């Protein structure tokens, strides 16, 4: 398949996914509601106060909100691979993509872009709400913006690993939900212990939180940005290899079409 046809397939994947998502309006509305209610609860209860001391920055709410946005984009990245693959397996369209002439990773990347675009709507509402109710203004620099999107791509890579297991071992939706929620507590989105953070440094979201908060608090970017890039690349490679490995195993065991 030529390069221009691959780009067309990518564009069509994004379009199809966006059109379909907007037809499921309630899904977007429920995302906005769930993320807003959770954020409202946390801001009202003073969650993340210790972030102010940690980064020597007065407005801890801004630091918390940035982490919360990073978390929601991380979920967008995760769901672009895990949810889309498990959904397509159950509705019987995954195998048609697998047999298409367009490389699978291109189509999955299209899902990622569509998922991030939809989550930007959620994030816009969160920022508006935070400004109107809690008077929080977030200062987004180019580095912060870039780190947020790289974080989504890195988490998409982790999602590919989980999707591989989903293809092989089927119903893992509960584990995915648990992992998504768990990310809140282990990646310093909500203040996390040093011990736990030393382990979860391999998760792009953890590093992203460090990058964006340091950038806001000290206006500097240290090696963490390079670490974020490297981790993202690593997870993409590992995720892609593991996904293909599990697909091939499922092809040998005859379980690819049974979901």
């Amino acid at each position, binding site marked *: *398949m*030529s390069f221009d*046809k691959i780009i*067309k*397939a990518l564009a*069509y*994947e994004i379009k*199809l996914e966006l*059109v*379909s998502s907007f*037809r*499921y309006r309630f899904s977007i509305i429920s995302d906005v509601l769930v993320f807003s209610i959770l954020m409202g609860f946390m801001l009202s209860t003073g969650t993340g106060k210790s972030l102010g001391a940690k980064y020597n920055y007065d407005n801890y709410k801004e630091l918390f909100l940035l982490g919360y946005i990073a978390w929601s984009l991380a979920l967008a990245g995760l769901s672009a691979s895990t949810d889309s693959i498990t959904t397509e397996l159950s*509705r*019987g*369209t995954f*195998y*048609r*993509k*697998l*047999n*298409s*002439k*367009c490389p699978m990773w291109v*189509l999955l990347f299209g899902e990622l872009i569509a998922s991030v675009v939809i989550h930007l709507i959620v994030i816009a509402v969160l920022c508006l709400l935070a400004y109107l109710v809690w008077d929080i203004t977030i200062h987004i620099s180019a580095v912060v913006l870039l780190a947020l999107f790289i974080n989504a791509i890195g988490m998409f890579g982790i999602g590919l690993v989980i999707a591989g297991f989903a293809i092989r071992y089927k119903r893992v939706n509960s584990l995915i939900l648990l992992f998504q929620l768990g990310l809140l507590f282990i990646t310093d989105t909500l203040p996390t212990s040093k011990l736990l953070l030393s382990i979860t440094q391999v998760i792009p979201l953890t590093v992203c939180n460090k990058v964006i908060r340091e950038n806001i608090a000290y206006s500097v970017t240290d090696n963490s940005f390079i670490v974020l890039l490297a981790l993202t690349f690593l997870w993409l490679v590992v995720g892609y290899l593991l996904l293909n490995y599990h697909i*091939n195993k499922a*092809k*040998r065991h*005859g379980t*690819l*079409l049974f979901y």
Partner: protein
Amino acid sequence: MARREDKYMLELKNINHSFGENIIINNLSYLFEDSSINTIIAPNGTGKTTLLNIISGLLIPNTGEVTFDAGYSEKDVSLLLSGDANLYRKNTVKENSEFFGVLMGLSKEEIRHNIEKYEKMFPIYRQIKNVLVEKLSYGQKRLAALFSAVISESKYILIDEVSEGLDLENVKMLKEFLKEIKKDKVIILVSHDYKFVSDVSDKVLFLADGDFKIVFDKPTEDQIIAAYVEMFMKSK
């Protein structure tokens, strides 16, 4: 069985596949000829769908191989599963058709051309093209999935339970459609509708004990039923 020197587009060579101790496909070899409709007949649970999955590359056999005509591969296979899967439910039939065309490497112009070409033989497309898949009836979903495979110009079209859920009018339309599109393609069907099978098939292959035991050229419905009874029911 077709001889090696015949024009062919798809060859199965010594295919073996088991699930655990259960041998499903047993040293099966066969040449599917160009421009033909082939129907596989066997009782439920005896390997028909497994064989379709092997041909489409979604199941790797324990041993043996599937070879395609020069320039083609498993990427030129469109497999349509039984049931109402195969399509994106929150998208229209047209959006699905275009998407799967794009995935098969066609340009927008080629897709438009193919839709115009095939919708004349497939009049229901005009009625359902702007309808969301989730709002279609079971039979309409099956037809829409078939249309999306055909307009993407797949060389090999495999359809499980081809006439499942279709009313008489659509069965008639589907028969004519398959006969029209078979040129330069290999179409492999699985069906228990023997009238349908006899009306459209160039070859009917009886799968028993993991191999094609009988191959008929254009059999009548009575011949199919008689062979089925002889092969699968007399021993019980």
